[in-house]
Structure formats: C-alpha cells, structure tokens
C-alpha cells in the first residue's frame, strides 16, 4: 500500500503551462505586442489564430511572388519593425481572380470579401507568432490597434496578469489607456514580485483509498539482507599512496611498571637424619642386667595374665574357623565316590631316536610348560656296563626333548658321550642339565641357546625352524628344517675321577655350597645351584662343583684353581668341550672303613633337597647385571668358602639305597676331632635290609622331610628318618615287581607305584593302607620311570616311561591332585600313629624279650 506513495521521479509536467494558461488569461506573457481584438466569426475551418485567442488574426504564408505583387517583400518593404502593410482590398481581389487557387489569399478569400474597409492590414510576422510569416488582420479595430502606438499594450498586459483567476473575460473593455507616468514604482513592484525562477516540481502521490488510515505495522529489516539494501563506501588502501612517513613526532612517557609477585619457596632447614645399617642389639651384660631388673618383673607380672588368657583362648577354640567352607570340602571328599583315574594326555614315541632303547630317566622342564626330557639307554641283558664297541655302531645317545604341542617331532636333542642313566635340570638355571653316564662320567649340557625355541614350542608346532644367527657361546647345532637341533654337551668329567660304574643317581645340591675342608654346609649367597652329588654302585658318593664358565651369559674368563676342584681353561674353545678335566669335589666312600662288605649305592636321597625352581627371566635378570661380578662370587665361593657363614642347622644326613637292597642312613658331616685336630668322619650309618633286590626308588616325601619311600623288588616301604629301625609301613606284592615310584606332588598321602607289567598303582594312605586305591594299566611293558609334575594349578601330569622307548603323559584327575582339607595334618597324624604303634610294638617285644630272658635266668638259677 505504501508503494503507491513511493516517491517517484520528478517529472516536469508539460501541461502545467497550459493549465496555468487555462487559469490565467488567454494571453501569454511573451507577446507584448499582441492586442486583444474582437473575436471574428468564421464559418469555415478556422484558420485563424483563434486557438490561441486571436480569432481575427489569420496567419498567411506569402510567397515571394506575392510579396513582390504587393510590395511586401521581406527585408525590403517590410521589416521587423516596420511590419505593417496596408493592402487594398481591390488588389487582393484582383490577385484572387488572377491566381485563384494559387493565390496566397485564397484561404482567407471570404474574410477579404467581407472586410468592410478598403485596406487590409497585413503584418509581417518575423517571429512566426501565428505560424506563418505574415498574418492578416481581419478586423478594423484590430488593425487600428496594431497600427496605433503599442505602448498601451504594456499596461493592458499587466492588468491581464493580475487577473489570473478570471478565465473568461467577456467583453472586456480595456481601460482607457492613459499615458502612465512612471514614478519609479515599477521597480519596487518588480523587486517585490515573486517570480519563479525555476519551474516548480510537482509531485503527485496517490494511494488506494481504502488504505488510508489502516494500521501500520513496522518491521525491521536488516539492511545487509538485501543486496542493494544499503550502499557503503568501504575504505581501501590507496595503491597510489606513496607518502612514507619519515619523521613523526611522538610523545613518550615512561611509567614504572610495578607488579606484585609472591612465591613460596621450600624452606629447607637442616634436619638430622640417620641411617641404620645394623639392628640395635643389647650386649649380653645389658641383657642380663635388664632381665634381673625390677621393672621387668613388674612388667611380666602385670602382663602375663593377659597373655595367658589369650593363649588359652586360642587353645580352646579357633575363633576364625570357617565352618561353612570346611563343610563344603568335607562333603566333596566323603560324599560319593568320585572317579579316580589317570587320563591319557600324550604319548611320545621317538621311533628314530629311541628305537630299541629303554628310557632311563624322565625329567620335566622346570619352567617351560609342556617340555619333557627323556634319556634313553641301551637295552642291556644284565644291565652291566655298556659295551662301548658295540655302541659305536649304533645311533648316538641323546636326550630327547618332547613338547606337548608336537607329539611327532622332538624339540631338541642333546648329544651325550655315553648313554645317560639319569639326569637333572639345574634348579637355579633350567638351561643347565647334568647327566650321569653309564660309564661313570658326569656330563653337563647347556641349552640356553634353545631356550627361546623351547618356549615357543607351542607357537611353531609344525616344523622346527632354527635361527642360529646369534650364538655367542659356540655350540654345534645342526641346522635343518625337519630335524631337531642337536646340542653337544659342554663338560664331561675326567674318567679317572669319575665313578667306575654307571652313575645311577644325580642331584643338584640346593642353595648351599660345601666346604671341602670342613665338609660343612655353608651359605650360598648367589642362590645358584652349583653343586652336584652323584652316586654309583662303585661304593662312592661324589660331590661335584660346577665349572663357573659353564653358566650362560658369561663373557669374561677367569682361571680358578681350587684344591680338589677343577681346572677352567681361560677360553672354552668351540669344538673342544671341557673334556676330561672335571674332578669331583668330595668323594665319600661308603662301607670301606666299617666292614668288608661293600655297599654300592644306587639311589641317594639327601635330606635338604628342596629346590626353588626360578623362572628363566629371573635368572636372566640375575645373570646380566651380575655377569661381571659373578666370577668373583664364584671365586669367592670356591676359594674362600670358609668365609661364608656356616649353616649349622642344615642337615647333612642322607639315605642311600644300595644294589643289594640295603638302605643306609648316613651323615657326610666331617667333624674335627678335638684331640687330634684332624678331620674324622663321623659315621652314623644305619643299615636297613628289607628289600631283597636293588632299590630303584628312594624318595623323600615332598611334604614331610623325614618320611622316605623306598621301593625295591617285591616290596616297598615308608620310613621315618632317624626314628625307627623299621619302616613305618611296608607292603609287598607277590605278583610282579615294583619298578618305579614317586610321591604325589600335591597330596601328602598319595604316591604312585609302577610295576613291571605296565600298571600303575595309586596309593592313598588316608583311604586304604592295605591295597592301592586305584590301579591303571598304562603300557604293556615294564615301566621304567615315573615322574609327576604340576604344570598349572589345574593340570597335573604324570609322565610314565617304559621299556619300549615310549613316553606316556597322563593327566592326573582332580581328586588325585587336590588335597582335601587338613590332609597334611591327617597324614602326619597317621604317620605319627604308626610310629607310636611301632614303638609300642618295640617296647612290647623288648619287654617280652626281657621277660623271657629273666625267665630263663630264673630257670637257670633254678637249675
């Protein structure tokens, strides 16, 4: 609606002047010479200037010819000032007759004929006021007016201007013209009169009628929304500007800038600090003094009552006993008869390597899961010393490593000089293996190169690949893709100093080292097992020390010499192992001094034989930072082992099972005789003969240190060390022989006995003591070795090897692996009861004997 009111362009409207003229008079201001004349009538087409208000004026166009005829030639007769020409009427009529249509007067012929007077006025219209160059004045009055002095025209004009409103001025009688005397008022009038200098601009704004007065709502409009909403003149950098300011007057005021800052500093002040290296201890005198002081007495009197109450409380009952838990366990073991079995897990038969051989020893790898090592030896008819010449034609002797994940291919093979009768992993470093050969030598093997491979045995189960790129310590390894690597032994004892008969048992000594002089056990600070004990039917037990360089990651070389020890060459050459230089540390001969009977130990069981198998990482970490210092520690140990603290409460007694079936209990501790200051071997040996055949197993229970299981021939027995002269428990079986046995590692009252018909008896002492709780057949031939292992808390394995060279790995079921609650206490109780019973029996028999003897005495007396 508002658009209609938009201001349009101004436009000069043309008809304005005409409107004004309509309002105003007929006369325009231009012509001052025009006079108003009477309006003439004309019937025909009005050719007059009536349309401009002068009906008596007839514009005519005179041609040159006409001008000559009437002597009104332009510029000659008639000029601008002298523009009037009186022409006779008769002349005009004459002209009309002669030229008729051609005559210029033809259009006004009628006017001319009607003209009353004799002369007509023709005016030269120089300015073409009426459209032509001449005009005829048709009325007398007009003629006269024109001819008359035109001064009166001005006055009349003014009158006309004032009378603007008056449109129609009918018979206007002009005032009688008087000569006007100008008194100067024209000037004033002219000054005062308002004249439009500029033509006024006229606007016409129109709108639809209905829109007037309607309410208006204004809205905002953002000027930038519309493209042309606003026009701006943005500043821009003038490219042409090139004035550089070179000098500028600038005023500066320097003001000191003040800022407040606070910091908190740690106030260190001298403090006393003390470090304690040794615990404070009172000297003996002080202790005595304190003990006898009064204060202590008072203290004790006041305190002991409280203490006794507490102790009694504990004796009465166990306040923290969880009945609920105990209930569950009891139910498990007593309710129902769970299945007891040995599940077959794996079976390894190395046809290539173990053909026609009996497995002599089976050993689990202490740290790597699923690796088991097996040593095989020749099948000998009477199990005497091997015929060496025969052997050379046959395959080499190896210790074979099997992995669970690859039952067909052995992982590793260790080459040995002779058949290995028994071997053991070193507890401190599972990469070192000590083996006893059937010719009496002791062999050391190092598999540290292949440890990684063994650990990855699970990942590369198919195919055996060897990356023998980095081999710092030289070992001959066969590179092949299908055959397992062959590792050579690295140390072999000297033949003269070894056993004369096959080494039947070999053990690593735990963390204490032996002092050769004192034969006392001393502390081994480095916690590395370095000593071996071997026994052989040649009546000797030998203690060996490990050559220091044979431990892995050794880079420096040292020469250590020790009496009764061994030589270590500076650099063990690659191809020549430490051959034949290794001597035992201590040799114990059994049965020499006492009697003539020789005692050929077949098995040995040391009292302190509890190992901690460390993981290889730990050992590695132990090794690498200690590599430079280890030599020194070894030298320390070997040369100055006297300086180490002597452990007094390590028991040095041991059991020996002999070839003849005797069990000898002896001590290796050598005491210095007070009188002679010479080492005298104290032998508290006791012999027990219950077995009739060679003892093949002599083992301490892993739970109780003084309970020993011995197996030989047709019977086996459990002994308690030092306590009795007879075994606590004894069993014999008529069918078949017992060939191997082992305590269970997890249950105190369970042990496994293997027979020569391939059966395994599982004995559970808490269930039945007169017969095995379970029997299972494993193989068809004689079982040679049995070895349980805890692979994980859920998996317990039993490795069984037989005469055919096959190794069976069985999984022990849960009931056999998990001890019931308080089993240990129960078993201990059981043993103690047995011991008591035995003692009681002894006493009874003793009493009986005495009674008998006294009775006899009396009888004799009587007689």
């Amino acid at each position: 609606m508002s658009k209609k009111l938009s201001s349009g362009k101004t436009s000069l409207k043309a008809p304005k002047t005409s409107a004004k003229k309509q309002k105003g008079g007929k006369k325009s201001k231009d012509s001052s010479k025009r006079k108003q004349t009477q309006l003439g009538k004309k019937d025909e087409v009005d050719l007059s200037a009536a349309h401009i208000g002068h009906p008596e004026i007839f514009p005519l166009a005179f041609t040159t010819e006409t001008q000559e005829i009437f002597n009104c030639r332009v510029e000659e007769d008639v000029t601008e000032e002298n523009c009037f020409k009186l022409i006779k009427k008769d002349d005009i009529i004459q002209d009309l007759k002669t030229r008729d249509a051609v005559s210029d007067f033809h259009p006004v012929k009628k006017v001319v004929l009607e003209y009353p007077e004799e002369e007509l006025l023709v005016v030269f219209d120089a300015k073409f006021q009426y459209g032509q160059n001449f005009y005829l004045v048709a009325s007398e009055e007009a003629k006269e007016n024109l001819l008359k002095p035109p001064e009166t025209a001005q006055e009349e004009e003014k009158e006309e201007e004032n009378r603007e409103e008056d449109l129609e001025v009918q018979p206007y009688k002009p005032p009688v013209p008087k000569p006007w005397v100008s008194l100067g008022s024209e000037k004033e009038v002219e000054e005062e009169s308002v004249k439009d200098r500029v033509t006024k601009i006229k606007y016409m704004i129109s709108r639809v009628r209905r829109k007037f007065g309607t309410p208006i709502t204004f809205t905002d409009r953002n000027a930038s929304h519309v493209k042309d909403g606003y026009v701006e003149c943005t500043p821009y950098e003038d490219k042409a500007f090139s004035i550089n300011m070179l000098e500028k007057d600038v005023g500066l005021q320097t003001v000191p800038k003040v800022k407040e800052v606070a910091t908190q500093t740690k106030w260190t002040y001298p403090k006393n600090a003390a470090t304690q290296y040794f615990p404070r201890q009172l000297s003996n005198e002080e202790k005595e003094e304190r003990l006898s002081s009064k204060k202590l007495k008072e203290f004790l009197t006041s305190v002991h009552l409280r203490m006794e109450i507490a102790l009694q409380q504990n004796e009465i009952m166990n306040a923290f006993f969880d009945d609920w838990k105990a209930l569950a366990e009891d139910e498990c073991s007593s309710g129902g008869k769970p299945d007891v079995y040995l599940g077959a897990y794996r079976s390894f038969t190395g046809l290539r390597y173990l053909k026609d051989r009996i497995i002599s020893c089976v050993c689990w790898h202490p740290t790597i899961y699923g690796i088991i090592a097996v040593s095989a030896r020749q099948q000998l008819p009477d199990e005497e010393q091997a015929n060496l010449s025969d052997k050379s034609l046959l395959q080499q002797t190896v210790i074979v490593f099997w992995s669970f994940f690859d039952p067909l291919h052995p992982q590793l093979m260790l080459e040995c000089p002779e058949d290995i009768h028994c071997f053991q992993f070193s507890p401190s470093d599972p990469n070192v293996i000590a083996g006893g050969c059937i010719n009496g030598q002791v062999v050391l093997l190092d598999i540290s190169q292949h440890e990684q491979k063994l650990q990855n045995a699970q990942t590369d189960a198919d195919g055996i690949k060897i990356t023998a790129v980095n081999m710092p310590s030289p070992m001959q390894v066969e590179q092949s893709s299908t055959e397992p690597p062959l590792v050579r032994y690295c140390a072999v004892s000297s033949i003269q100093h070894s056993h004369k008969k096959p080494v039947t048992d070999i053990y690593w000594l735990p963390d204490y080292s032996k002092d050769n002089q004192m034969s006392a056990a001393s502390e081994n600070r480095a916690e590395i097992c370095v000593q071996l004990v071997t026994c052989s039917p040649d009546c000797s037990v030998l203690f060996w020390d490990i050559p220091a360089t044979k431990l892995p990651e050794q880079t420096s070389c040292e020469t250590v010499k020790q009496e009764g020890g061994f030589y270590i060459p500076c650099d063990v050459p690659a191809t020549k192992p430490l051959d034949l230089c290794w001597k035992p540390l201590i040799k114990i001969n059994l049965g020499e001094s006492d009697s003539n009977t020789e005692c050929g130990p077949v098995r040995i069981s040391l009292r302190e034989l509890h190992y901690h198998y460390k993981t290889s990482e730990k050992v590695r970490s132990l090794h690498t930072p200690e590599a430079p210092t280890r030599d020194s520690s070894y030298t320390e140990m070997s040369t100055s082992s006297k300086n180490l603290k002597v452990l007094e409460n390590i028991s040095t007694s041991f059991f020996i099972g002999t070839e003849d079936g005797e069990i000898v209990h002896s001590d290796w501790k050598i005491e210095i005789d007070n009188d002679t200051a010479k080492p005298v071997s104290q032998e508290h040996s006791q012999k027990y003969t219950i077995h009739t055949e060679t003892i093949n197993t002599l083992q301490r229970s892993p739970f109780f240190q003084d309970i020993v299981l011995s197996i030989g021939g047709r019977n086996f027995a459990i002994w308690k060390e030092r306590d009795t002269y007879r075994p606590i428990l004894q069993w014999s079986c008529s069918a078949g022989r017992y060939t191997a046995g082992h305590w269970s590692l997890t249950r105190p009252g369970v042990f496994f006995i293997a027979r020569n018909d391939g059966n395994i008896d599982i004995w559970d002492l808490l269930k039945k003591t007169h017969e095995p709780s379970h029997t299972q057949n494993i193989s068809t031939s004689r079982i040679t070795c049995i070895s349980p292992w805890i692979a994980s808390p859920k998996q317990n394995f039993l490795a069984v090897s037989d005469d055919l060279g096959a190794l069976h790995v069985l999984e022990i079921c849960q009931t056999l692996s998990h001890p019931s609650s308080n089993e240990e206490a129960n078993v201990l109780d059981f043993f103690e009861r047995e011991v008591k019973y035995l003692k009681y029996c002894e006493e009874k028999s003793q009493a009986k004997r005495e009674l008998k003897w006294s009775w006899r005495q009396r009888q004799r007396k009587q007689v």
Partner: protein
Amino acid sequence: AEVEETLKRIQAHKGVIATIVMNAEGIPIRTTLDNSSTVQYAGLLHQLTMRARSTVRDIDPHNDLTFLRIRSKKHEIMIAPDKDYLLIVIQNPCE
C-alpha cells in the same frame, strides 16, 4: 628366676612358637627365636605397636592400648605392651 619361670610357663602353652621380650625402643632382651627373625619381628612389631597405641590415644586420650593380637593364616601374634617393655608371643592356634 621369677622372670624365667613366667616366661617358661608362657612358652609351655600349646602351640607357642616363640616368645620375645623387648624394651620400649624395640631392642630385644630375651627371645626364644633365632637372631635374625627376632630382630625382624622386633623392628616391625615395635612400630606397629606404637602406631596402634597412638591410634587408640588419638581417638580417646584417656584410653590406652592393652593388648594387640594379629591373626594371620599361619599363626597368631600376641603383643602385650607396657610402659617400658613389650612381650610378644607367637602361637599356632590351629588344633
């Protein structure tokens, strides 16, 4: 003598493994355990007793620690503190 007798009596209770008497600074005076273990027990238990005592006294300044029993899986350690001395008994409470 009396001292000996009392200690013997305490030691004779069933299940008692060891008895230690130490002074207020934690230095053992009389013990039935080996030296290294004694020193270890003395150091650790002395600190613990001090801490327990200060805890009790913090809560209530009029209160004081009379007895401290630590029950572990394997045995129970009983500590009877006093102004100048400390009596520690280690007992195996299981039947």
